[in-house]
């Protein structure tokens, strides 16, 4: 295990060392040997679907082929589902392992009998990197807050948008999308709080990003109010409070928390 100071570097370096890299946040992109795989190489959407499903279940034990078919194509006949699976898997292997001799085992998709799983050790995926950075940030938060802030900052940069945006109507991707979003919201808020004194404009930027994910995240309004006051911009601090008031009323029919009201009172009383 590397020293805490070097750990972030170790996490980030893994991307350079891995030949197959996958981006899932905000967009879907696969890179093989530093070359982006063009969309045209995925002959059919079922191949992309199966590949993205493998990414989503990467932390589970191997899944039986039938389970995969049921989750992806549960509404077609068993024969059609099996045909889809075979064609999709063939397409995936052609794309990610073009030089693999036929019938030789894949280094990325491990097959045991009729069960399949991703060999996640051999692949770099942005969500795993994000997970590791935030986990490390959480571990270091009390002992070494500036190191934690660096980890959160990298995680926030990695988050380019929701997980697999082309699968927002799919059941199987929903849980992972929600898990990552909540993780990122927490990290961005901790980081924004940490930066209020040192870099208020960065706090404001992070708070605005948080609100673009969830417009009712009250902590983000409070951070904006404090950061604008650090900047000496009282009108914007007041505006942030008014926006908070409006959105909470509209969405939940509730008032801001006493903590937010007290901050507003304090701001209002400053000459």
């Amino acid at each position, binding site marked *: 295990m590397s020293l805490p100071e070097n750990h972030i570097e170790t996490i980030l370096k893994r991307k350079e060392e891995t030949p197959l890299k996958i981006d899932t946040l905000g967009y879907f992109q696969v890179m093989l040997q530093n070359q982006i795989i063009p969309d045209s190489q995925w002959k059919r959407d079922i191949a992309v679907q199966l590949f993205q499903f493998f990414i989503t279940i990467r932390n589970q034990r191997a899944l039986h082929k039938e389970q995969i078919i049921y989750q992806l194509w*549960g*509404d077609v006949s068993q024969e059609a589902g099996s045909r889809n699976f075979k064609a999709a898997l063939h397409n995936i292997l052609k794309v990610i392992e073009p030089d693999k001799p036929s019938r030789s085992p894949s280094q990325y998709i491990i097959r045991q009998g009729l069960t399949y799983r991703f060999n996640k050790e051999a692949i770099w995926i942005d969500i795993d990197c994000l997970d590791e950075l935030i986990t490390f940030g959480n571990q270091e938060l009390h002992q070494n807050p500036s190191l934690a802030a660096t980890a959160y900052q990298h995680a926030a940069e990695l988050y380019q948008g929701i997980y697999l945006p082309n699968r*927002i*109507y*799919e*059941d199987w991707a*929903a*849980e992972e999308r*929600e898990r990552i979003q*909540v993780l990122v919201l927490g990290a961005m808020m901790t980081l924004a709080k940490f930066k209020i004194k040192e870099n208020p404009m960065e706090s404001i930027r992070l708070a605005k990003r948080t609100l673009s994910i*969830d417009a*009712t995240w*009250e902590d983000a309004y409070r951070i904006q109010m404090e950061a604008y006051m650090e900047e000496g911009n009282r009108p914007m601090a007041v505006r942030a409070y008014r926006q908070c008031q409006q959105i909470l009323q509209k*969405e*939940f*029919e*509730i008032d801001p*928390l*006493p*903590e937010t009201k007290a901050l507003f009172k304090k701001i209002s009383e400053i000459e």
Partner: protein
Amino acid sequence: MSKIEETTSFVIRFTQKMFNDENGEAQVQWRSHIRHIQSGKEQRFSDFSKAIEFIQSQLAELTLQAMEDKPVEEQKGILEKSFNIWKKVALDYPKKMMETIKDPKAQVEQIQNQVSQVGEVISQSLETEINQWRAASKADISQLLKAVNSIAADMNVLKAKVDEIAKDKS
């Protein structure tokens, strides 16, 4: 052709806010968000009954779509059954949900207990039945055969009477 089986899913996010009100009393508030995955429709709520309404409306839509080619009377029947299920959910679920939020472990334990109690009752009653005959002697079995034969004879008499009534009616 309409589908018999449909799957639909919802993601609910709960955010707990704990604070002291103006009187210094500790308060807890739940701000929540629900999303219907297949349609992308979403709603925020702080009152759980709103979430139930939302789920119900999405499921009613799904039910309507699934039975659009069925006769009106059948549609009415299915809808009525669906609403009855939801009436029960709407009445019971918020309470259960809040209990789960307060003490999830206790709720899971309670469900596990209920499941194992039902299992125990079934296995006990089966065991009693089986045990009764496990140590059966030849005399017991002969007694059982006599009882079965007697029931069969009674059944034949009954069947003859039913046939006679049916004959009279026709």
